[in-house]
């Protein structure tokens, strides 16, 4: 093949990837760059004039207690969701691997919340957690557990816990299916020889299943942390970020700054913070994929 023919070959190959690359550049790369630039300006998002003010937005946000509240809420949501959801997911998946009765039925129903519209889920749970006639408090009262009744969404501490609960309620089915899928890929022979060596089922789980699911653990941890970083829908529908910013997240705070208080410069600065966290996670994830790919190549 001569040079020009090879170039033409490369060009036609590249054309297959071009549409997605163009969409990425217009709808993802451009907004990020736009936000980075605006983060150095004082701008209400509407008027034609913007005032350059250097790193003032950054200084202001680093000193803003609400911003730190968003950060710690992100950490709490990420840690709680990752731990509880993964633990539940892997336990349920291991049941289904042992083919307990009704496995198929449970799998379909446990995944059900993951497909439901978040605004509807939020609406239902807002009626469950409501203080006076909320169904949770009604149930507690009928069980004579009045002392446990709470204004669930109106108390800062319980409000965040409620949101985390709903989030786990919605996404446990997803973790469960991911673990199940990847458990199916573990070769059966490993378990057979372990049984011959006299290893019980708990030992098999700890020494075969758990370590071999490393890739799944990492994927799910990254996805859960990312979900905590993006967290918006439930907070917006259930608590609007309140009471007193107790459930404020980066996304709800950006929304308020952009569309309620018209401080676009500051909103863009929060975007840059979020973006940096997301990129940090991306680097970890891509490095893992890349290493995996190389190992697969050398294994061939």
């Amino acid at each position, binding site marked *: 093949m001569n040079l020009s023919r090879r170039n033409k070959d490369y060009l036609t190959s590249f054309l297959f990837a071009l549409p997605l690359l163009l969409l990425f550049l217009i709808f993802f790369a451009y907004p990020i760059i736009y936000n980075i630039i605006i983060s150095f300006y004082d701008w209400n998002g509407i008027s034609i004039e913007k005032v350059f003010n250097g790193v003032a937005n950054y200084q202001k946000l680093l000193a803003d207690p609400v911003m730190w509240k968003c950060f710690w809420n992100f950490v709490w949501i990420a840690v709680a969701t990752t731990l509880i959801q993964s633990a539940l997911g892997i336990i349920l998946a291991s049941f289904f691997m042992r083919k307990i009765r009704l496995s198929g039925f449970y799998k379909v129903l446990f995944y059900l919340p993951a497909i439901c519209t978040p605004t509807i889920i939020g609406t239902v749970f807002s009626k469950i957690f409501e203080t006076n006639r909320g169904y949770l408090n009604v149930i507690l009262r009928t069980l004579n557990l009045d002392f446990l009744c709470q204004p669930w969404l109106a108390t800062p501490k319980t409000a965040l816990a409620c949101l985390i609960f709903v989030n786990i309620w919605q996404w446990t089915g997803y973790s469960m299916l991911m673990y199940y899928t990847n458990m199916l*890929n573990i070769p059966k022979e490993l378990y057979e020889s372990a049984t011959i060596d006299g290893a019980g089922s708990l030992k098999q789980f700890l020494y075969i299943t758990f370590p071999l699911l490393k890739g799944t653990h990492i994927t799910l941890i990254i996805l859960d942390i990312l979900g905590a970083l993006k967290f918006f829908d439930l907070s917006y529908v259930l608590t609007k970020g309140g009471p007193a910013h107790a459930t404020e997240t980066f996304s709800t705070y950006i929304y308020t700054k952009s569309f309620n208080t018209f401080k676009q410069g500051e909103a863009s600065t929060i975007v840059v913070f979020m*973006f940096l966290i997301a990129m940090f996670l991306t680097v970890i994830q891509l490095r893992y994929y890349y290493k995996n790919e190389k190992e697969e190549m050398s294994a061939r």
Partner: protein
Amino acid sequence: MKNSKTYKIVTQMICLIVLVIILFPLCLMVQKSLEVSGFGNYQKVFEYFDLIPNVITSIIVVGGTLVVVAIVVSMAAFAFSKLHFPGKRAVYYLLLTGMMIPTSALIFPLYQIVKGLHINNTGWSLVFPYATSSACFNLMVLTNYYNALPDELIDAARIDGAGKWKTFQFIMLPIAKPGLVFVLIQAFLTSWNELQMAMIFINDPNKQPMSVVPLRFAQTTTGSGFTINNLFAACIICLIPIAIFYTLASRQLMEGLTDGAVKG
């Protein structure tokens, strides 16, 4: 390995507890939506709201997204799996970062574009942003799927004189269909359920897609004849399309998730 009797009982009990927690809110919704005046609750929802324009917006958004995703992601996955060009790895990893980008980072700049093009308050404003994020999110899944298909197929097609486009259209695409179906089911769910971008790009309540509409129901209950039973009936109505979809697609979704198309 045979399961012992204790194992069977304990696992069933755990599954039942989880099942009750999962189903409680959903059953509550159904039960309350029928309380007091039965199906009359549902009738009243239609007296208060004309949901047809909202459904139309949702159909435009989801339909448009699926078409764009199908074309763009299957072509890109084919290129990254079976074709060669300089910088291929770099472009692939760049596109994979797309799945990490939060919606909040996109909304304001894209809203400016959408307003500039005068397509805000239409479903079209959401099609391309949704398609881009679904395509980036599912690119790896589909590329892995293509990787599992033998290279000999392409070589054979080339010897028979088929160009890249023909090979893609008539050989690769039909074989990769199960992988693509899985991707499209995911794209359907995310684009049907998305709230954050939808409620900002389309701020006319009569045109908002079905993912935003429930917010209106909750606001209506305060101080009008629209009771909590009507509210739950309205929520059920909004869930019906997705329930039908899940019934039809759940087998393919489960198979897609469990046949190794998705690798963690």
